[in-house]
């Protein structure tokens, strides 16, 4: 009875049940306008980096700001939960899609309150809107609220984006060249920032880079798999930038560090099961007929 109807009803209802209804998603379209700037402060527990980021729209999301910082200054980052949350910044944080894999430590999110102070972010970086002159902060550490989580140092946008030069170009950061060599003497935000705030970050850079970015030292790298960025470090490069510190970062390359034994096993298993299924079906239809 109604076999075709039944089929249709099934397919339609199952698809609808799982996907809801056709949904449109979209991010902000990139536009090349220059002008608005925001300050981004990232404290990975070992050092603090302050970056002046040129916004590509009047308003961008907190996540977009990080992407822009990566493009303009080579900040290394990794988003998780499907790109909705911040997993990794400046080489620190979980490498997978699960941003709380190292909980209780996680990346806390802060908004500058305009008076050099900080407010714990109530919304996610994906939905928070940042405009010209805003200050954003990210700190690595434990503590589920603004009262317990490590706070970024007092910052105002003027201290990071001093004498904004609209000519700042993001182009140089696209360099595909991995830069495995940590620079022993990083000088973040050298050129034009006042000495007060930004200098605090510099002393501890080298050990951090050595400890957390070397694949051989990472626990996950032991398994010979490929989640770590191939670039062992994102070191601060001395290359001059008119508007802030520049981080050089190796771009993600498709290659994997370790031998994908697991992957091979999985493929063999999958092929075996698929072929086994075919054989079973063929055997059965022979019996049946």
């Amino acid at each position, binding site marked *: 009875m*109604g076999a075709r*109807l*039944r089929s*249709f*009803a*099934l397919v*339609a*209802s*199952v698809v609808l*049940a*799982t*996907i*809801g*209804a*056709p*949904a*449109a*998603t*979209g*991010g902000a379209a990139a536009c090349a306008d220059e002008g608005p700037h925001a300050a981004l402060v990232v404290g990975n527990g070992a050092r603090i980096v302050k970056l002046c980021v040129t916004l590509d729209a009047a308003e961008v*999301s907190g*996540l977009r700001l990080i992407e822009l910082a990566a493009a303009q200054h080579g900040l290394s980052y990794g988003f998780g*939960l*499907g*790109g*909705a*949350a911040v997993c990794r910044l400046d080489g620190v944080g979980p490498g997978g899609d*699960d*941003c*709380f*894999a190292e*909980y209780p430590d*996680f990346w806390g*999110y802060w908004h500058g309150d305009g008076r050099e102070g900080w407010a714990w*972010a*109530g*919304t*996610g*970086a*994906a*939905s928070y809107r940042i405009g010209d002159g805003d200050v954003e902060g990210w700190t690595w550490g434990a503590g*589920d609220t603004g009262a317990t989580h490590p706070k970024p140092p007092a910052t105002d946008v003027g201290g990071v984006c001093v004498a904004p030069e609209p000519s700042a170009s993001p182009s140089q950061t696209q360099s595909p060249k991995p830069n495995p060599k940590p620079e022993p003497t990083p000088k973040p935000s050298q050129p034009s920032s006042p000495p007060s705030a930004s200098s605090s970050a510099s002393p501890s850079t080298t050990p951090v880079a050595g400890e957390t970015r070397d694949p051989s030292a990472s626990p996950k790298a032991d398994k010979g798999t490929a989640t770590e960025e191939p670039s062992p470090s994102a070191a601060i490069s001395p290359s001059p930038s008119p508007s802030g510190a520049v981080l050089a970062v190796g771009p993600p390359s498709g290659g994997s560090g370790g031998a994908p034994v697991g992957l091979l096993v999985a493929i063999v298993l999958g092929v075996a099961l698929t072929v086994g299924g075919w054989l079973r079906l063929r055997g059965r239809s022979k019996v049946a007929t």
Partner: protein
Amino acid sequence: MSVALHAPALGSPAGTRARVTLLVLANLVGAAAFLWPFALPAIAGPALENHKMDGPWLLFALAGILAALLLLELGRGGLGPKTVALLGVLGAAMVALRLPGFVAGFSAMFIVVLVAGNAFGPAFGFLLGTVGTFASGLFVGGLGPWLPFQMVAVGWVGAGAGLLPHGARWRTRLLWLAAYGAASGYLYGAIMNLWSWPFLVDGSAWAWDPGASAATNLSNYLRFYGVTSLWWDSARAIGNVALVLVLGKPLLAALDRAARRMHLDLRQV
């Protein structure tokens, strides 16, 4: 001796308070199963954000099952053969009407739930919604994790139909039912979308944002609903209204007649 007998009503009068408690509890659990995307940050904080892709989902899928079971518990032991037979027959009608399926979000299945809920009361309406949805899931081979949600949501549609005022005239009763058909068409869609909406976490303005406040998420959700489901659910709402207006009276009359013949007084539930 001469006796005039009336068949017993559905369920026993004993334990009414327990039943009401159960009803409230079950509906709260059911509501939680659907509404958690709004309440998550408030109740769990970032520790749970860790598992926003899976943990809560699993928990609340279990809550959906629990709610379905709890609500079915309403009918425990006291349904009796007449109610079970009616549920079976009307559930079969739902299965049959689910087959031709869809014009966008509209399915003729809903008319059965609306009319039977209205004729036999909220408890029956709920049971029919859950039982019929379960059976149709089994029948078309559509068992899956979404089924408890569907069962509860359709059950609510039926229960709501049973709570409508009947009024003194057909006209009043039908207009109420038609209005409810429209409203429930949208509400059902809004509720059912909620279970899959948290899968959309891409940071857009209509995506679920596990870290955000309930108000933000609600507005995101409304935006999402408005963009993606409004037209879809409108088909359901319009279809419900049309069917109620065209079929409501004869079907209600048929159900009333059957109730009389079966000497049934389900409205005492």
